[in-house]
């Protein structure tokens, strides 16, 4: 996808507003549970592992590697590469790979977060390092 693509505006809710406030500053947040120590993504107020409500925001390095991807050859907005990235901190997340030659993507490749504008908060994407 390129910058001409119009991305949907995230609809914030009380559980996720803080996440979207930080993407404005170019920060990717994950959540960590103080009770069991496990990080998770996307953010929940109650830990999906131990069900503790002692979850806190943590800034991710924004670095990770490609777990899997697929190049969708046709769409209304042209070809795009969807994939899962496993962050350095642990959690994997769904994303698109942008600002790159999509034909050269590889499983295991190092990537980093970049943000793309919407009519609201910026959205996280990933690009090869």
């Amino acid at each position: 996808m390129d910058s001409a693509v119009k991305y949907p505006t995230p609809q914030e809710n009380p559980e996720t507003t803080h996440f979207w406030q930080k993407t404005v500053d170019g920060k990717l947040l994950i959540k960590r549970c103080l009770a069991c120590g496990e990080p998770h993504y996307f953010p929940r107020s109650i830990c999906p592992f131990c069900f503790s409500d002692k979850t806190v925001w943590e800034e991710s390095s924004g670095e990770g590697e490609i777990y899997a991807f697929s190049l969708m050859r046709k769409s209304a907005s042209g070809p795009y590469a969807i994939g899962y990235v496993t962050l350095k901190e642990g959690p994997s997340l769904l994303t698109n790979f942008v600002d790159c030659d999509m034909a050269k993507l590889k499983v295991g490749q190092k990537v980093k977060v970049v943000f793309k504008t919407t009519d609201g908060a910026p959205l996280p994407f990933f690009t090869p390092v």
Partner: protein
Amino acid sequence: MSIKGKAYIAGIFEHPTRHAPDKSTAQLHAEVAKGALEDAGLTKADIDGYFCAGDAPGGVMAMADYLGLRVRHFDSTDTGGCSYLVHLGHAAEAIAAGKCSIALISLAGKPRTGAMPPRASGAEVDFEAAYGATTHNVYGMCAMRHMHEFGTTSEQLAWIKVAASHHAQYNPHAMLKDVVTVEDVLNSPMISDPLHRMDCCVVTDGGGALIVTTEAIARSLKKPLVRMIGHGEALKGPRGGKDLNLTYSAGVWSGPRAFEEAGVTPKDIKYASIYDSFTITVLMQLEDLGFCKKGEGGKFVADGNLISGVGKLPFNTDGGGLCSNHPVNRGGMTKIIEAVRQLRGQAHPKVQVPNCDLAIAHGTGGLLGVRHAASTCILERV
């Protein structure tokens, strides 16, 4: 309490249409319900349980009213394409518990005529919807990861389509009746890497229905006796991004539950209906169910091993979703119907498995490897 031997599939009907611009979706539900009742030798007034999923216009209340049903038990669990495999398990539970005695399960819709309404979103929507996940590219990622970890090849995946096409040539209602080769699959256009067009199922209008009942009622009817002896269901998701693993499905849990209840093993199965939205769907599920070890699915499906009369595990002898029918983008119903045909000895003679007395019907719904459900039903001819 077990459902083993408590519920019988007395009526089946698969709508012969693959394109129905001249009919309403509710009408198709009524037509398949009528067909299944006639197959069973029962009437609408006999139905006291009803099961339908998200394809039923207006849900279970509106659908039951449209059909004119008066039921004492109902269930509108929606787990995508495997909903009907879940319903069959739940109907067996309800019958075993005495909550109903004659259950109707129906599926119908028209994705070939017009676009389907979008799926309802979960709490993940703002963190995922922008990235354009579709069935094609999510199943493509599953295939990509499977190839990365286990060396699975596109040629091996193609064998699944080849086997389905060998069966579809004998099904007069199949949407795609031509036998294809591995080369044909590999030469078809790439849709979402590494899946080619022929790795993908057909898009069809239509539907199907089942009548599930008690042993006593089934024995009073004229059809060969086919009963449920095991059922398992399971849900799987990335769970906070920690459990993401695209190489296995919830079938690793639903399968063993069903086999344990039935008291049989994968080696005992004579015929397998395996959900085939894409070739990779079949390969992963065969591994997950224990027909071969994880990672060895590619070798297992190659060289015609899934072709009836040729290989060790005849699968989807109607041509499956890959060639025959995938009504409403939901293949669970037709999986059960072909398994019942096999157990009745009523599959096409060219694909009928000799002395077929034990079959599995298994499927996943939602997005395989991501948020999805699996349901496994083990069926026996009495």
